[in-house]
């Protein structure tokens, strides 16, 4: 099997499995006052410190959550409610339309149910949000609750200059949230240095467990909780700490960040060979997103593991099915709950037409990817695209 869907989820790191297994055998609620509770709390807090250090945050800025979706919901809704609570005219959200649905749907929920307004940011054809565009959308910022721009796009892999965007937002007194689910472990992410007010990350994209994530939240950022209860996590996220998952999250983050440079070089080289090989086999295939070797503010302008390609005349879900039948696993981007392939909202946001948006595939490489995986794709991609083209687009 050729697994090229690491952006969906990536295999658990062996050191994570070991650390979690050890912790799962222990009793103790981290909120309890007795010895077992103290032991659990110690492990959770050590994990918090290690994770904070790996991401340039202070331990008190780490709020453990149930994953990326929860962190995005907490940041968008929590910051909106808190900011509007302290000044009723702040009801505008300034957001990129290429965000993950966890952000988009939270925003749309606030618009529909809670009197929010939204300004959608213009997106560069590469998928990047430029600080100038953010500045224009913010205006004097007085009516803005918060802005949200993802660190790296989950579909096409484009990185934005988050530090510059945070500076732009702060210039008019607006906090910035960033969804860094794909960025952590792939590109340098330093929460403190970036200046962002809130940052979403999750475990299972970097070799940790599913259902474990964090929101990094500046001490001075006010955030209204979604979950009420025992007052854990600065009273912003109640709920008994899942210590084993937290250990796994921390070990995965420390490991992925520690090995990032070496791994990025490795994975990037494989990815480059994949893209070059595919475009040699299918000359009119088109790379979406930023150029492979682009640099941005001293780091990569594109996630090293991301290859997102359009195959004109072939439907993405036909390609996916034909590749799946040949043991190659990749993705077409977003699917609705019923599994219906929709044209990618990200590609539509960067100005692609619906045809190109429907004809695209994402290959995402990760820590277990090898040359053999790339070879497997290159062996079949030509005939697969040809067959998918013959099958047409299923529409007139």
């Amino acid at each position, binding site marked *: 099997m050729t697994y090229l869907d690491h952006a969906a989820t990536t295999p658990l790191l062996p050191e994570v499995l070991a650390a979690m297994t050890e912790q799962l055998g222990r009793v103790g609620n981290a909120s309890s006052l007795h010895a077992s509770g103290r032991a659990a709390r110690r492990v959770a807090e050590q994990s918090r410190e290690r994770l904070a250090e790996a991401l340039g945050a202070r331990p008190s800025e780490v709020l453990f959550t149930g994953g990326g979706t929860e962190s995005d919901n907490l940041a968008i809704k929590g910051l909106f409610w808190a900011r509007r609570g302290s000044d009723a005219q702040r009801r505008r959200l300034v957001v990129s339309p290429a965000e993950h649905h966890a952000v988009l749907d939270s925003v749309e929920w606030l618009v529909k149910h809670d009197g929010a307004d939204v300004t959608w940011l213009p997106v560069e054809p590469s998928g990047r949000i430029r600080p100038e565009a953010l500045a224009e959308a913010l205006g004097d910022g007085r009516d803005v609750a918060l802005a949200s721009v993802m660190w790296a796009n989950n579909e096409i892999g484009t990185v934005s200059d988050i530090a510059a965007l945070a500076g732009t937002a702060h210039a008019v007194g607006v906090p910035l949230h960033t969804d860094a689910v794909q960025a952590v472990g792939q590109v340098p992410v330093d929460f403190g240095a970036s200046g962002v007010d809130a940052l979403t990350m999750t475990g299972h994209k970097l070799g940790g467990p599913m259902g474990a994530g964090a929101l990094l939240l500046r001490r001075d950022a006010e955030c209204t909780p979604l979950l009420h209860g025992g007052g854990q996590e600065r009273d912003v996220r109640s709920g008994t700490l899942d210590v084993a998952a937290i250990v796994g999250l921390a070990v995965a983050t420390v490991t992925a960040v520690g090995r990032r440079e070496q791994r990025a070089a490795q994975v990037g080289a494989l990815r480059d060979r994949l893209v070059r090989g595919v475009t040699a086999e299918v000359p009119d295939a088109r790379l979406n997103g930023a150029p492979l070797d682009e640099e941005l503010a001293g780091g990569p302008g594109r996630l090293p593991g991301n290859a997102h390609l359009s195959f004109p005349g072939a439907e993405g*879900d*036909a390609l*996916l*099915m*034909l590749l*799946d*039948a040949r043991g190659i696993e990749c993705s077409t981007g977003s699917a*609705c*709950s*019923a*599994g*219906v*392939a*929709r044209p990618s909202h990200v590609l539509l946001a960067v100005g692609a037409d619906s045809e190109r948006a429907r004809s695209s595939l994402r290959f995402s490489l990760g820590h277990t990817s090898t040359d053999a995986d790339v070879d497997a794709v290159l062996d079949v991609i030509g005939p697969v695209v040809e*067959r*998918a083209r*013959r*099958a*047409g687009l*299923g*529409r*007139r």
Partner: protein
Amino acid sequence: MRVLAAMSGGVDSAVAAALAVDAGHDVTGVHLALSQHRQALRSGSRGCCSVEDSHDARRVADELGIPFYVWDLAERFTEDVVDDFVAEYAAGRTPNPCLRCNEKIKFSAVLDRALSLGFDAVVTGHHARLADGELRRSVDAAKDQSYVLGVLTPEQLAAAWSPLGGMTKDRVREIAAERGFGVATKPDSHDICFIPDGDTRGFLARRLGSLPGPVVDATTGATVGEHDGTYGFTVGQRKGLGVTAGDSRPRYVLGIEPVSRTVTIGTADLAVVDEVRTGVPTWTGAAPALPGRFEVQLRAHGTPVACEVSTGDDGLRIALAEPQRGVAPGQSAVLYEPDAARGDRVVGQAPVADAR
């Protein structure tokens, strides 16, 4: 064989897919997303295209260990089936959308796509003996669906297969239960899938608006009432005419004239016909020699009638051995060659144009 199993989320297609796997084929499951407003559909199990149905189909595919995908055919379904359904009613005819869906979607769009993707056949859960290019009635007469497949051509039949025609619906449910499929007890679908509340007249009224016209008594020529739209009527209909004629004898819809929007009604003796004229026929195999003797079924779940078929002006002329009531233009006249042993064989069909 590489087989594509069309999986609606119901018990029939689940068992059909399972039997295809048992037969040793390389099976891939596909659920067809047909509604453009999937979330708006009711959550019950009687429709054929809700999110829950997609989930049910996926559960079965996962249990069978076969790949499963959802194909979005909402656009084509809307154009070829839903819009056609509305247009047919607007033209005073009574369409059969399931037949149209088989003709244009399942055994056209889906089959074409399957073949070009490298599949050899499409397997479905229709209750009909459908294999080796031949289409025959199911052994379960009450569940027989050969009527709505009668429109298929030899090319379509050649790549179509249903393993369920030789068993009863009860047996299908037993097989599903034996395999532990959650859909084993899922209720049958009865409604038109895109009219989930079952209110066809209300659906048409929303699409076509109020188009009032007269209700005329055939005997006297007198206007005996008004209606809001001819689409609320079907030839042969007795209930819900909303008029009282001069006497207490029951009245039936005899005809619908779409331009003047006239609905003509009359007594039972006027409502029977013994000759049906059709549009251009389609054949499931080589065209039969005409004139010829067959049995004809004039609507879904209708009783077959002996007939003699000859070539007419624009299609067929079908002389019925026994007079029939409620032969509605737009329905399909499906011709069968009786065969008690192997199941009546579908010879072909033609759309009813007129009956007298």
